[in-house]
């Protein structure tokens, strides 16, 4: 069986894509959905501090960026489009509402000993990928 150079390159490229997709599916990857970094940068008052909190949160949370971005977005929303579509004010309102819901439901995460809303920990963890 002979394989043309074009076919070989095509198969190789396909393999790379497949491996990348598998990797991304395996740990969520480290790439943020479009717009996510901008929304978080506008929201967080202390980006460096939030990054440190996020790195600490990730020590106890193996989820990758895509999983975190999905968790942080509204239920059912496509994170690949939601962060780019939502404006800063709506993003802030969404996060604040989620924080309220977390505490009302007792959903907390411990980061550096702080009892934070789970959403706060996820936000910082996602930001630490930026």
């Amino acid at each position, binding site marked *: 069986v002979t394989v043309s150079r074009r076919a070989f390159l095509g198969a190789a490229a396909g393999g790379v894509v497949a491996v990348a997709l598998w990797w991304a599916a395996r740990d969520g990857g480290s790439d943020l959905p479009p717009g996510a970094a901008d929304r978080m940068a506008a929201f*967080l008052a*202390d980006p460096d*501090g939030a990054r440190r*909190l996020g790195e600490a949160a990730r020590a106890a949370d193996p989820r990758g960026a895509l999983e975190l971005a999905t968790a942080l977005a509204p239920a059912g929303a496509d994170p690949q489009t939601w962060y780019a579509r939502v404006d800063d004010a709506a993003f802030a309102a969404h996060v604040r509402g989620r924080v309220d819901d977390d*505490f009302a439901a007792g959903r907390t995460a411990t980061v*550096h000993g702080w*009892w*934070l809303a789970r*959403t706060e920990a996820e936000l910082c963890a996602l930001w630490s990928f930026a």
Partner: protein
Amino acid sequence: MIVDLARTPTALPRRAEIVVVGAGPAGIALARALSGSPFDVAVLESGGREIEEATAELGAATTSGEPGYPITASRVRALGGTTALWAGQLRPLDPSDLAARPWVAPRGWPVAYDELLPYYDGALEVLGGGPEPFDLEHWRPALAAADVPLVETAAIETVLFRTTQGELRMGVRHAADLEASPNVTTYLHATVVALVAAADGSGITAVDVALPGGRRGRLDTGVVVVATGGLEAPRLLLASRAHDPRGVGNGHDLVGRFFMEHPHVQLASSVWTGAVELFGLPIFYALPTPVGDRLLRGALTLPRALLEEERLPALTVTLAGVEDAPAASEAPAVEALVRATEGRTESATHDLFVRAEQRPHPDNRVTLGDTVDAYGVPRLHLHWEVHDDDRRDYARAMELLAVELGRAGLGRVRARFSSPETFPLVSGGHHHMGTARMDDDPALGVVDRDCRVHGVENLYVASSAVFPTCGHANPTLTIVALALRLADHLLAGTTS
């Protein structure tokens, strides 16, 4: 009349119908209540009018368990007792503190709250606390008028502590009353070194007293009230071994056991984004604050129903200075994060200081040491530790508080421990309780509901030593209330 035996050659009388050992707040309350009665009363105080080094040395003691417990610094032999050092914090026990709470102790107090309640008014009069109730509702208008904001959420309550107005030292405050009493004589520098039991052990016939200049005296009596604190009361009972090597009232090996403190620990850090108006000075949740003509301090607590549901002991939380380095705790990062997630522009950081109820544990106890003091009385040894069940519950209370502060949009809390075994240094409030606990069953308590030592018909204890459980409130107000109740019992000449 007050007679200082170090200044006058007066001898002790041969007999007094009632002997009160110790002129601290309980002893003074008894003396005032018995003044004018038909009884001839002698109050025997080891110290003088002021704190003296040589007298204080009689109380030197050793400790084990929690490191650094200030056992000597927290006791005073002088007219007025430890009120010479105290901060004048007053609060009654809560009714639920006396009730049966099986998660705290197998049994509650044998005294109903309604039996104790009437004596709190008198205790407030003795201690200069003013006649008003402690209810927050009573004080709400005055607090508002004083611009004192309150933290109140569905699961966080504010409780009030009152501060003694005027002279804190009860020996000074009530000296004139003691001087003027026609039937109560207060002897200073009269150290009771032993209770003398009747031949059959059923009563106390006299007290042996060490006097200045190496003299000794024996004072016959019909009734003895041991009104020393929660450490010296068991010491005297245990050291009075002439009749029984186990001591007086110790047939069930209970004297000295079940020592309780109010563990004090700076257990958490906090970032506050709501109610930042709280953090002007003075801070109501940290320090006594002028409210009208009173000094009030607030403390946060969890509702009693929640404590019961979670099976937690009582506790309060106040604000304190920040001990952790900010970088270590990431407090600035959290402050900025929470400002964003709560949509606030202001914030403040404080540590959270916990004052908690401790469960009575038989291994926390006062025993006699191997050495003796200048009068030959064995020194005491205290073993005190905060056990894992209490630590776990204090940690759980912090978690509940953290979630509630977050839910209410007030702030966030950081545990200053990674597990209950890694608490910061635990200290105490100089509150010595439980070592002659009250229970109607002689197998479970040293004294009965009348504070009379089981099996000894004329010996009583007026002290926080009798507390079977301790709640979170500072004990002095309840000590005095119980002393006044005991005075009524003695005046009625009844036994129950």
